[in-house]
């Protein structure tokens, strides 16, 4: 088994390493420095497109940041090998934001004024998006986030901020409600951390349940610093069908273990968001109680029997094994449910740049308009997670979600929601703002 691992890693390391991706870039960029007259003409057409990657390299987002970076490197490599964007290679400039809202804004400014990138991309954590957006708006630089938050669709950002590669939490909550009502039960207790992330789930899931004729019987908010949960469980009414849980943080394993011990094998069904256990091995001790329970997944962690060729190609490019861990390191479980958004966002950028015939920073406004003009996004190599629809007014993409069941220590997809399941009444129209 060891030899297998070593063998596969020696092949795949080079295909996914950012360094090797950038090596290719160095060669492409070097073309522009050939002496003579030709140089100028060539530099005009083949100078790299510079994308500023606002990465969580340090701070609380670092673990997610690693996989976002890896997916980004894989997508850039694939795009560059296929001829780049308008014949120009992509060059990624990484700046660490420390998962810090104030530094996020600084980094945006640095990208715009110092590195003079064409656009900024890749932010995950909500508070960094919210902290950075005003700077992007002032500097009039396109800001493509991969954050899953509802902040873009809420209308509180500005015209320069778009989220075209990952769905938002509001449509995720809405999408799963009909399936839960029809297949698990109509009486729900919600357990969520008592802050914005949990409140989003409370505010978006509960109305969706009621629309489906169900009822949220109890809402149990847990203080974010809590590390033991048993004393909250008696608050769960006895006559419910489902516990909807979205706990996150280092105490998640304890939460699941204590919940399992509380019910001792019987009790209501569980439905959770994989955000709780993103990058955590589902076979960790204490998680045995999850067997048979259901989870939302953006993109499936485990390779499914019916996976499309596109998805297989995407997983190979990023370097995921069948269990959703790194091919180089089977214990390094990926953030599969979210990181596909990096891949898909970069392809949206490519599509919009080509549509806008993007030449340089003077075309930034055209790039935003071209992004807003995108509507149907078919499933394919560029969008392996599935087909999507982009709402140009709302700057938010809508897509399908996966509902998976834990079976024998694997997550198997049992249902894919439709795009329509997640649609809601838009609250914003960014296109009314001037560019």
């Amino acid at each position: 088994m060891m030899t297998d691992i070593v063998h596969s890693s020696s092949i795949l390391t080079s295909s996914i390493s950012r360094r090797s991706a950038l090596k290719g870039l160095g060669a492409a960029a070097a073309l522009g420095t050939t002496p003579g007259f030709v140089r100028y003409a060539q530099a005009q057409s083949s100078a790299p497109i510079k994308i500023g990657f606002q990465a969580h390299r340090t701070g609380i987002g670092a673990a997610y940041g690693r996989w976002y970076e890896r997916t980004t490197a894989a997508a850039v490599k694939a795009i560059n090998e296929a001829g780049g964007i308008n014949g120009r290679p992509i060059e990624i400039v990484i700046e660490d934001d420390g998962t810090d809202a104030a530094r996020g804004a600084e980094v945006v400014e640095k990208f715009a004024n110092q590195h003079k990138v064409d656009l900024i991309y890749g932010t995950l954590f909500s508070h960094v998006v919210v902290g950075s957006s005003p700077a992007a708006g002032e500097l009039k630089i396109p800001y493509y986030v991969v954050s899953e938050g509802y902040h873009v669709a809420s209308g509180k950002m500005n015209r320069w901020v778009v989220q075209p590669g990952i769905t938002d939490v509001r449509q995720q909550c809405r999408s799963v409600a009909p399936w839960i009502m029809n297949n698990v039960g109509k009486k729900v207790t919600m357990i969520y951390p008592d802050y914005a992330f949990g409140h989003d789930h409370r505010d978006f899931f509960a109305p969706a349940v009621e629309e489906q004729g169900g009822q949220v019987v109890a809402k149990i908010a847990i203080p974010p610093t809590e590390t033991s949960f048993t004393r909250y469980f008696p608050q769960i009414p006895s006559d419910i069908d489902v516990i909807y849980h979205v706990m996150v943080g280092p105490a998640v394993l304890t939460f699941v273990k204590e919940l399992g011990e509380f019910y001792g094998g019987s009790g209501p069904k569980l439905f959770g968001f994989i955000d709780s256990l993103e990058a955590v091995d589902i076979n960790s001790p204490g998680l045995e109680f999850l067997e048979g329970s259901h989870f939302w997944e953006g993109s499936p962690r485990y390779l499914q029997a019916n996976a499309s060729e596109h998805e297989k190609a995407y997983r190979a490019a990023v370097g995921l094994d069948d269990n959703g861990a790194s091919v180089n390191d089977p214990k390094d479980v990926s953030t599969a449910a979210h990181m596909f958004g990096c891949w898909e966002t970069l392809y949206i950028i490519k599509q919009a740049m080509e549509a806008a015939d993007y030449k340089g920073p003077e075309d930034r406004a055209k790039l935003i308009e071209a992004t807003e003009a995108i509507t149907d996004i078919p499933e394919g190599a560029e969008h392996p997670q599935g087909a999507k629809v982009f709402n140009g007014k709302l700057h938010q993409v809508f897509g399908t979600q996966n509902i998976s069941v834990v079976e024998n220590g694997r997550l198997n997809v049992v249902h894919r929601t439709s795009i329509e399941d997640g649609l809601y009444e838009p609250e914003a129209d960014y296109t009314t703002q001037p560019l």
Partner: protein
Amino acid sequence: MLLLPTNYYLAGGAVAVALTFAVLAVGSLTVLDRFADVRIRLFAVPDKLLLAGSFICLAFLAALVVIGFIGSRDPLSNPLPLMVWTVVWVGLTLLQGIAGDLWRWINPWYAPARLLSRLLGRGTGDRMPAWLGYWPAIVQFFAFAWFELVYPAPDDPARLAVAVSVYFTVNLVAAVAFGYEAWMQRGECLSVFLRMISRLAILDSKDDGEGRRCLALCLPGAKLVGAKPLPLSGTLFLLLALSTVSFDGLMRTFFWFGLFGINPLEFTGRSSVIGISTFGLIAMFVLLAAAFLLAVWLGERLTRAPAGFGRAAGTLVWSIIPISMAYHFSHYLVVLVINGQYALSALSDPLMNGLDLFGTAGMHVQAGLLMGAQSAWLVWNLQSAAIIGGHVLAVLVAHVIAARLYGSARDAASSQLPLAALMAGYTVFGLWLLSSPTAG
């Protein structure tokens, strides 16, 4: 980590430290005392190597600073932050504690300070006023710790390059002005700290008077026992060093965030807690220093023949070194394992232009090494072993120091009661820090 039975370890650690003390209190100290003096001679190293080592290190440092300015902006791809924070601050410190004063042989200030002193016609003798004590080192170490733990972007390659350049220049000027040896012993905080830590190591070295250093093997901690008493400022320096590493652990715990009503699950970053962290850094130092000095003062009260508070504090403080080393190991183990791999990769391709000097540029960073239940168990046990072992060694060292200080086993035992209690408490604190839920 939270699923492990960490409370048993916390209790066990305290018991182990207390038991060590109890055994010492009733047992004989002469064996230990004699062990401390055992040396096994190895070989001699010519002092001329100092100059070569310093030059090489200086050239390397200069290259790193340049790369900090012009290389990748990614702190995990640029070798400067990885070298400073992981390889030197974590790795070299641990190596010093095990193998002895390596830093002396590669100190990048040595060559330029000698050259400048000669050019300016100044000797290298001690011109540092005695009243300065260790205060320059304290001030600089505090600034260093603040930059590492509180400043929002210590990993940013360009900002770090500026910080390193300024720090290097200031200390070079001071080394020329006050004399190289004196400044490295009491002024430049990294050298001061590394030299102190090296007293824990199993290698001892002595000047043979003929331009060579004779190396000898000794027991870990043996060199602490014979160390000269530190002045109050030196004592405070050592306590500051330990308190900052402890604070590094504390500032990430849910407990600490909770004190200030911050939600650790949506911690908005260091920028938002600069005031709180600065306060914590100072408060931790004040608390630890007060606790230590109080323990020594009480110890003095409990003996029949007090040695004098200053002298007692200045010698007993050396027993903090094993604890400092244990904290360093436990708290930075994870950083060392993961960022050490990034460092290997970055050093092989320092400018990200496709170079592969050591064949490690494309290596995949094995983050999974520290993931999963087995790894959590292993990491926790290594950390606990270090913390408990460090405190046990500290109790041993303190006891031998006390025996020499007070001249009798009985006085050593009674004087050490408060300090041993403090150390048992600090063991629990250290283990609690490592087992608490953290963010960032």
